[in-house]
């Protein structure tokens, strides 16, 4: 075994910034540790209990993100309309693999407005729930532009053929500030389709390479198309030089393309 100049690591304090600092003073009502050590049934009971504080419910949801099962879904979903706890409920629900989470998000969608609705729309996108595509497609035309933007983004994250059709249609009827998000979502959708339906993906990329698209999206689409091969109308795009252009064309390069 090669030698080393290193000290043998020991459990004693090491020098520098790694030395153990003291635990800060924590008020009992804001101490997460006792909640963190609870088993899932007690955490679920804490979320359900009307007498639990906002802090208790928040930390219980946070822990349930990692250990909660089906029984944790309904109690946390009930918090999706809570102004402060909605983010904790989504934090707890998003990684839960139980399919009832998708049902809970879809059920909550029509009951919420503004930010809280945006949060649920985003969670649906993260979970790639195709059953929500119809509802999200309608929301792309929502009067709340931020809701519409979130809906377009989530349709792109869900991806697939239906999503690509929704976004292609949205690109034809939306304006700023929804249009740029719809364009980015379509780009995401096209990327997802490359493995499953390459011709459809390239068709979408071609649409996104139009001059009317936001510059970053357009350039991204052009790069993919470049990697895929030359443009089909390559020869037609090189007209014979005439007038001043022909005079400048000393190399004859342009003429060769005819």
């Amino acid at each position: 075994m090669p030698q080393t100049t290193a000290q043998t690591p020991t459990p004693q304090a090491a020098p520098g910034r790694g030395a153990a600092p003291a635990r800060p003073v924590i008020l009992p009502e804001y101490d997460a540790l006792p909640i963190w050590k609870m088993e899932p049934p007690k955490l679920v009971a804490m979320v359900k209990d009307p007498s639990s504080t906002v802090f208790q419910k928040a930390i219980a949801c946070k822990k349930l993100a990692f250990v909660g099962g089906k029984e944790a879904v309904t109690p946390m979903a009930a918090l999706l309309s809570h102004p402060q706890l909605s983010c904790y409920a989504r934090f707890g629900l998003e990684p839960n693999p139980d399919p009832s989470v998708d049902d809970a998000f879809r059920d909550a969608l029509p009951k919420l407005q503004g930010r809280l609705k945006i949060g649920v729309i985003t969670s649906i996108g993260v979970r790639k729930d195709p059953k929500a595509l119809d509802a999200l497609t309608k929301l792309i035309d929502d009067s709340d532009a931020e809701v519409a933007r979130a809906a377009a983004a989530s349709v792109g994250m869900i991806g697939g053929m239906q999503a690509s059709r929704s976004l292609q249609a949205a690109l034809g009827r939306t304006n700023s500030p929804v249009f740029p998000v719809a364009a980015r979502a379509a780009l995401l959708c096209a990327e997802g389709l490359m493995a499953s339906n390459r011709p459809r993906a390239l068709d979408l990329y071609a649409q996104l390479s139009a001059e009317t698209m936001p510059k970053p999206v357009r350039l991204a689409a052009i790069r993919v198309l470049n990697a895929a091969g030359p443009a089909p109308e390559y020869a037609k795009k090189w007209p014979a030089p005439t007038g001043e252009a022909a005079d400048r064309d000393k190399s004859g390069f342009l003429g060769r393309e005819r």
Partner: protein
Amino acid sequence: MSEERNRVTRRRFGTSLARAGMAAAVGGSAMEQAPAQAPAQPAAPAGGPVAPNDQLVFAGIGLRSRGMYDLQRLLPDSRVRFVAIADVRESARENVKSYVDKHYGNNDCKMYRDPAELLARPDIDALLIATSDRWHGPMAMWAAQSGKDMYIEKPGAMSINESYAMADNVRRYGVVYQSGAQRKNQFAFEFAVGLARSGRLGRLLAVHADTAIGLGTVDEGGHSWWPPETPEPEPLVLDWDKWLGPCLWRPWNSAYPDRGRGEFWDFHAGLLEWASHTVAMAQWAADMEHTEPVEYVPDGPTFRGDGLINRYTIYCRYANGVQLVLRNHSWMLLGSCSNRFEGTEGWVEVGDSGRIEVSPNLKSLVPTKIGPKGDPTGEHIREFLQCIRSRTPPRANAEVTCHTHVTSHAAWICAQLNRKLTWDPAKRMFLKDEEANRMRGRAYREPWRMEALATSM
């Protein structure tokens, strides 16, 4: 973000190319621990003065102590024209404006409270981003979606899923990304990596990385405690909602802006305080920059429940059998951020002390004059500016940063769960461990979102 339909003219396109094509040199390096007010080494432009229309137009987001340090090395470069700052803190905005205006002798630096307004400016080519950790991932994604190149401080992402989303967005939009892992341009580290990659160490056995949990502690409760609520500041002074960003809501307390990173899991990126540097270096040395170890085994005391797991070793193994050993802070006494690479025919050790230690058989390879030992941030920024011109990935590009972060987050999850984990780099998931897989992401608080292809559930 560029929220308008594209109105690019041929002239503007040509101007962008001209801006991107300027070559010169950037100001030199200085010690990392120097105070933010210390004057930077003056620029030494190799190509002489650069016409204003040919400069790269820069803006900053979230520049305080480290950000100002970076700015002092960026601003003297004649290729750069810095025009705007966005920050949720009024005092920080004004501080940067004052510094920039003094440098240029004018009053032109614009201030924004909302970074989205800055990102919407089509005249801005590139960004210097040095917000707190929780904003690095979202800002990188927004910058990429806006078509802007970026030099962004580390750590680059708060979770495994965010790491992939960040790199995917940078790749998708074709922007140049340089993480603030500046040791990738420091002589001693380059030399050590070169020994490993050249075969001089023989068959590689193990790469060691000095890591640290950070500036505070992380306990079994995820350090999810709240200080008591106090009245919120005026949004113009400090916009609490935007300060929190995608993190979980909590009531305001003035302790957060000053202590926010180290003491609270929500604002903390686990091992990545130093792993952003040292794991990056180890993966570079092992030629494993585009993957992660497949196995993680914790060795050390379990969580005590009341504080620290600052004494640990995490043994990781790549698919080819090479070990990555994550040690706790300063274990080699070669200064912070130390690395050791060992093979069948020799070993090398380096750290921020600038010393290079090697096995006796390799001593003749160590140069007698080993170059500057100081902080290489100036060199790192210079490489970034060159890559903006060539449109090639710099050393700390988004892809290698992503894999560094996934490795470090996976190791951190292993430490928190205190059990062996197996990772599948292709599927981007742990095998047969649902709890670990659930820890790969952190749901963004509304209204923020990633706009990324979801990782496998």
